[in-house]
């Protein structure tokens, strides 16, 4: 119980928000040449997404690990499916900037809930891959309805207003995105409404981008 009500706090965002007045040119480590940072909403809270400004910073956590047993942790090809676009950080940022605030898109963390609760990308919501993999059509219908799918009078699932999804998991060695995408496709979610962020959480962290973590996990 205690764990579930803990506040989510942005790892970098908290520091970054205190220097709101920081002008574009004052940002040493920008996201891109033109984007120093951006704001998103995570669980009703405004979060500033930026990169760590300390140029001596090094990762020290689990995401520095180079090798995990394969299978199941095998390196995945750049494409998850021929019709699904693979994206990198810049496209992900663009998605968060343009699609998420307008309600047209949702960032999906495909990992199991425990991972999501420990640390995730700001604005992401959690749909663990296992839901689509072992769930049934009824569950898929519920899930898709919450993602904007409507049901026509004749019972056809209508995806015209369904949201675009940017899906990620732990990284190139992680198959949780693949499995979620396979499950979504199995029940008819359109491939052209899904994007695969292949570098995933490891790629995100490697670039020092803001993550949100539970307060209790901040050391």
């Amino acid at each position, binding site marked *: 119980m205690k764990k579930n009500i803990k506040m989510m706090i942005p790892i970098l965002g908290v520091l970054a928000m205190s220097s709101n007045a920081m002008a574009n040119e004052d940002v040493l480590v920008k996201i891109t040449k033109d984007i120093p940072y951006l704001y998103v909403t995570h669980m009703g809270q405004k979060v500033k997404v930026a990169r760590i400004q300390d140029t001596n910073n090094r990762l020290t956590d689990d995401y520095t690990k180079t090798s995990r047993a394969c299978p199941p942790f095998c390196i995945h090809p750049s494409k998850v499916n021929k019709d699904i676009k693979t994206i990198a950080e810049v496209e992900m940022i663009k998605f968060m900037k343009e699609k998420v605030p307008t309600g047209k898109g949702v960032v999906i963390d495909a990992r*199991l*809930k425990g991972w999501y609760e420990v640390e995730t990308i700001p604005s992401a919501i959690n749909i663990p891959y296992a839901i689509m993999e*072992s*769930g049934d059509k009824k569950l898929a219908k519920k899930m898709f309805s919450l993602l904007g799918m409507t049901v026509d009078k004749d019972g056809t699932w209508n995806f015209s207003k369904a949201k675009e999804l940017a899906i990620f998991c732990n990284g190139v060695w992680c198959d949780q995105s693949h499995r979620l995408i396979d499950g979504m496709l199995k029940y008819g979610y359109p491939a052209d409404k899904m994007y695969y962020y292949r570098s995933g959480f490891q790629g995100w962290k490697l670039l020092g981008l803001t993550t949100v973590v539970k307060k209790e996990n901040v050391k």
Partner: protein
Amino acid sequence: MKQKLIFLITICLLPLAMSALTTKELAISINLAGKQRMLTQKMTKEALLVKSGIEKKQNLEKLKKTRDLFDKTLKGLIQSDKSLKLKACKDEKVQKQLQRVLKLWKEFDSNIQKVIAANATDKVYQDIEKQNLILLKEMNKAVRLYVSQSKQKTSKRAQAINLSGKERMLTQKMAKDLLLISQKIDSKKNKQDLKKTANLFEKILHGLQKGDQKLGLEGTKLPAIQKQLHKGEKLWKEIHPTFKRALKDKKVLHQTINQLDTLLVEMNKAVKKFEKSIAREKRALQLSALVNQFMQKKNIENHIINLAGKQRMLTQKICKQALLVSLNIDKAENKEGLQKSYKLYDKTLNGFVKGDKTLNLPASKNPKIISYVKVIRKEWQPFVKSVKKVISSNKKESSSLSYIVSCNESLLKKSNQLVQLFKKSGAKKSFLEKARLNIVDIAGRQRMLTQKMTKEKLLILAKVNIKDNSKKLHKSISMFDNSLKALIGGDKSLKIPKPSNTNIKKQLKKVESLWERLKPIYLKDQINKQELQTIVKENPILLKEMNKAVHLSEIAIDY
């Protein structure tokens, strides 16, 4: 606790009752009921504009439209209206208040109709001026009743919809007050009203942005709403200083009223954004509830395997405790333990079929499992009869003990078969899910082995089938040894991945160090009294620690 939370979330998402409005429907109702307050002021303002001859034709048209909209919305709030996406709220208090508003509206409307028909006398305008505030007050009460329908989780957001909606009304009230003052109707009172209204408008606007405890506002951190409110604030800062001049200059008055209309439009946009944010929050909550429900179901599978595995241990524990009773070792204590063990076995067996809340066991719907439990029960009934005899008798119950000793392994075998049936049931499992179930099964089997080894050791000491039991004991020791090594270091052939979870690793190490102390004693052909005592005392500790490891494997996020 986790279950409680899931339950609470689910409850939050479900409509309060069949007749209650959903969060989205309620948000729409609060918005439109709130808008009605504004319309009372807008109608009054437009009627006054007609009276003062300012853009008479346009204002007559506007008045007619406003009147029609108020009428349509009020009917929609009472009876539902698809075109307005309004669903009637069946709450008795809300309906009663809406009927009160309807009654007032009929009186007010008859005067508005007279203005529209160009039949209005000064008395009509005086009545409009008096009635609009009463209508506004009663409509406001209705809005508050709608807000009180919202659940705790979203009540602050509902209050934000209410008060941002109220801002729309306040823009129109200020315009109306300006007109009344300019026409020298109750100037003193209306000037005070105008000042009050302007202050309230400012207070709410600030509260919507930064929060206000007294108003029940938490402030917004949502960028889109912040931006919209900032727009409203900027406009307000331009309009407010013109009030004084507007009272002296008809042209400025006209401009100010138009600007207040623009402010109304901007505040309306803010209301819509609040309304949308409630829908988004609801969707996120629903998704989270779906995920929680699903994950809970997944964890239940591990839990069932754990309990089914525990049944194997109980068959051995029962036999061990019966032997200890017959050997007069801690007799009273072991009789008590024996009673607890058989009751737990019985309770769990029933729980597999009927479900058991205290064990967090759902009733099985799998016909194979239900019929296999029947098979076990057939064997369990005579077995438990013998156990009860051992407990109730003060003498050595040789025949009952002999029955327990001869039948416990068959019961163990069947209990193990049930574990395998549970493992095979349920949805298709992935590599890691299968591995997790396997770990819970094998770690669970270790608990049984702790009891089996002690039972076999006791049988040897009691000189019962020494050769046979000695062989069995060595087999149990080797099985415990190998499984423990597999659990600590991983084993491909057993489909056990090496644990990465620190707590699990720590717990298995603890079991290992206990086992290292006990193993040589189990292996000894002859043991002294002290060593027997060590086994009797430390065996339950080994079981307890192994049980902790099983529990950690059952609930750990990653393995």
